[in-house]
C-alpha cells in the first residue's frame, strides 16, 4: 500500500480506535454509549449556537496546532505553545485596554501584532538557547510555560489592575467580537478571529511549501548536517522557526483575549489549548490543511462534550480521555503501519 494512503489511514484508524475505547469505557462504567455519542453529536450540530461555539473553539486550536506543526517541520518540538499563548493573550489585552480613542483600523491590528510579538519573544528564547547552547527545546519550553503563567499572573494583578483577579474589558476598538456572527448563531461567542486563523493556515502553507526560506526550514528539519554542508544557516533557521511558531501561538492567545473573553484573568493553571495544539498538529500530520481538519475534530469534541453531562449524564472528561488515546494511537503509528503492511501483504497472497 502506498505511503500516502498509509499516512492518511493512520489518523483515521487512530480516531476510530479512540472512539471504540471510549465506548468500552462508557460500557464498563455503566453509561449508555449510544446516548453518550448522540449527546456529543447534538452538542456539536444540534443547534446553531453549538455550531458557532464549535467554530469559536476551533479558532485557537488551528493556531495552536499551526504553532506546534511549524516548529515540528524544522525538527523542533515546541511544548511551549501554552506559555506563548498566555503571554500573547495578556499582551493583546494590555494593548486593548491601554488605548481608548484609537480608530479600530489601527487599534485592532496593534493588539493582534502585540500578541504575535509577545508569543514570538517567548519562542525566541528557547530557539536561541537551542541554536547557541544546544539546550533541548522541550525542557526549556516547559519551563517557559510556568514562567509565563506566573509572570502574567503577577502583571495582571500588580500592573494591569490593582490587585484584582481580572482586567477590565478591552476597548471596543480592539475587539474581535462580531455582532453579525452572534446574531446568526443564536448569540454564541463566535468572532472574526476564524478568518485570522485561516489566513495563518495559508501563510504557513505558502511559507513552507512555496518559498526558499520554507525549503531551508524543512531541510533543517530533515537533516541538520546536510543543510549545514549545503550552506544553509542552521542556527538562524532554528531561531526563526521558533519565533514564527511562537507568533502563531501568541495569535491563538489574541483570539481568546480579543475575541472570546475580552479580558485577561489570573490563571490557576494552564488553558490546555497549547497542549491540545500538540494533539491537533500530530493528528494533522504537521501540514497546514491537516491542522484545520484536526482542529475541527478536536474543537467539535471539546464543545460537544459539554452537552454530554446535560443530556446523557456522562462526565465531559470522557472526551479528554478519547483525545489522549488518539494521541497515543497516532504516536504509535509505527505499530499501525506495521499491521497495515502485514494485512495488505496477506491480501496479496
Amino acid at each position, binding site marked *: 500500500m502506498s505511503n500516502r494512503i498509509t499516512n492518511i489511514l493512520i489518523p483515521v484508524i487512530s480516531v476510530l480506535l479512540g472512539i471504540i475505547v471510549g465506548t468500552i*469505557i462508557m460500557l464498563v*462504567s*455503566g453509561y449508555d454509549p449510544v446516548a453518550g455519542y448522540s449527546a456529543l453529536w447534538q452538542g456539536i450540530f444540534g443547534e446553531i449556537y453549538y455550531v458557532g461555539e464549535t467554530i469559536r473553539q476551533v479558532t485557537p486550536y488551528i493556531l495552536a496546532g499551526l504553532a506546534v506543526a511549524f516548529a515540528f517541520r524544522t525538527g523542533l*518540538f515546541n*511544548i511551549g505553545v501554552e506559555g506563548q499563548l498566555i503571554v500573547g493573550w495578556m499582551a493583546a489585552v494590555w494593548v486593548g485596554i491601554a488605548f481608548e480613542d484609537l480608530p479600530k483600523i489601527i487599534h485592532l491590528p496593534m493588539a493582534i501584532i502585540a500578541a504575535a510579538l509577545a508569543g514570538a519573544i517567548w519562542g525566541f528564547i528557547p530557539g536561541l*538557547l537551542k541554536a547557541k*547552547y544546544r*539546550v*533541548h527545546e*522541550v*525542557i*526549556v519550553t*516547559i*519551563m*517557559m*510555560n*510556568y*514562567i509565563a503563567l*506566573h*509572570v502574567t*499572573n*503577577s502583571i495582571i494583578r*500588580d500592573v494591569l489592575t490593582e490587585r484584582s483577579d481580572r482586567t477590565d474589558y478591552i476597548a471596543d476598538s480592539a475587539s474581535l467580537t462580531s455582532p453579525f456572527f452572534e446574531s446568526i448563531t443564536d448569540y454564541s461567542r463566535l468572532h472574526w478571529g476564524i478568518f485570522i486563523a485561516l489566513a495563518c493556515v495559508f501563510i504557513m502553507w505558502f511559507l513552507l511549501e512555496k518559498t526558499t526560506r520554507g525549503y531551508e526550514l524543512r531541510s533543517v528539519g530533515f537533516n541538520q548536517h546536510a543543510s549545514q554542508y549545503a550552506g544553509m544557516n542552521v542556527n538562524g533557521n532554528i531561531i526563526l522557526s521558533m519565533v514564527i511558531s511562537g507568533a502563531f501561538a501568541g495569535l491563538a492567545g489574541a483570539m481568546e483575549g480579543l475575541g472570546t473573553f475580552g479580558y485577561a484573568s489570573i490563571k*490557576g*493553571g494552564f488553558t490546555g489549548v497549547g*497542549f491540545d495544539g*500538540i*494533539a491537533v498538529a*500530530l493528528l494533522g500530520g504537521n501540514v497546514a490543511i491537516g491542522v484545520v481538519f484536526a482542529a475541527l475534530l478536536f474543537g467539535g469534541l471539546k464543545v460537544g462534550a459539554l452537552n454530554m453531562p446535560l443530556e446523557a449524564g456522562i*462526565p465531559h*472528561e*470522557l*472526551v*479528554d*480521555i478519547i*483525545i*489522549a*488515546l488518539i*494521541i*497515543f494511537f497516532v*504516536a*504509535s*503509528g*509505527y*505499530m499501525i503501519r506495521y499491521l497495515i503492511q502485514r494485512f495488505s501483504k496477506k491480501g496479496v497472497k
Partner: protein
Amino acid sequence: MGLMDILVILIPSTLLWASPLIFTALGGAFSERSGIVNIGLEGLMVIGAFSSIVFNITFADTFGSATPWVALLVAMVMGGLLAVLHAVASITFRADQVVSGVAINLLAIGLTLFLVKRIYGKGQTDIISEGFGKVDVPLLHKIPVIGDIFFSNTYWPPFVAILVSVIVWYVMFKTPFGLRLRSVGEHPMAADTMGINVTRMRYIGVIISGAFAGVGGGVYAQSISSDFSHATISGQGFMALAALIFGKWHPLGAMGAALFFGFAQSLSIIGSSIPLFENIPSVYLLIAPYVLTILALTGFIGRADAPKALGTPYVKGSR
C-alpha cells in the same frame, strides 16, 4: 520574630513541599537514566494522588492511622500501571517519547476526573480524615536547637524521601542493576552487545518511575491538598522534572534540587508572614525553579548533560 521562630516555621514547611518533588524526581531519574524521556511525571503524580485519596476515603475506618501509608502503596501500584502504557508506546511501539508523555498527562487528568464524577457525583472528593499529620520525631526532637528546627512539629514523608534518595543512589551507582540501567541509557547498542536486555531494562526504568511518581502524588495529596480535584497536581510533576535536570540526573542532586525548590515554593506561600521575605514579590520565588533550571541547562550554573541515548528508541541492528 527571631531567626529561630522563622526557621521553626520554614524548615518543616520546606521539607513538606519538597517530599513529593523528591519522590517524583527520583522516579524521573530511573526513567531518564534508562534513556526514556518522561514528561508524563505530572500525569503519573495525578493518578497517584487520585488513587491514594480514593483509597484513603474508602478504607480510613479499616486501617486507621496507617491508612495514608497503605494508600501510598496503592498509589505506587497505580502509578506503575499507568507507566506501563508509556513504556509500551515509547519502547515497543517506538512512539515519540515526548508525545507519549503528553498523552499520559492528558489521559491521567481526564481519567481521574471522569472517575471522581462517576464515583462521587461531583467534581472533587471529600477531605480525607487520615492524612500525614504533624509529628515529633521520637528521640531526635529532644536534641536542643536542631531538634526544634528539624524534628519537631514536622511530617514523616520528607524523612522517608531523603532515606529513599540515598537508597536510590546506592542502587543506581553501586549495584549491577544500576550499572545496567545507566548503560542502556548511555549506549544501548554497547549494552545489548554485552548481553543486557535493553527493552527489559527500559521497561523496568519506566515502570519504577511511574511507581515513584505515584508515591509523590500520594504524598502531595495526603499531606498538602487533602482532597482530589482538577487542580490538586498543577505543575508538581514538571517541577520534579526540573529538579531532576537541575540535579544533573543524579539521585542525590535531584534530592538537593527538590529541597531547594520546596524551599522556594513554601517561601512563596508563607513568605508574606515572615519579616525579611515579606517584601520579595512572590512571583520571583514562583519562577525561580524554572529560571534556574534553564540556566543550569545553558551551562551558566555548571553544565547539566543528559544521558546520551535519552529520547532515542533502540532498534536492534540499526547504527
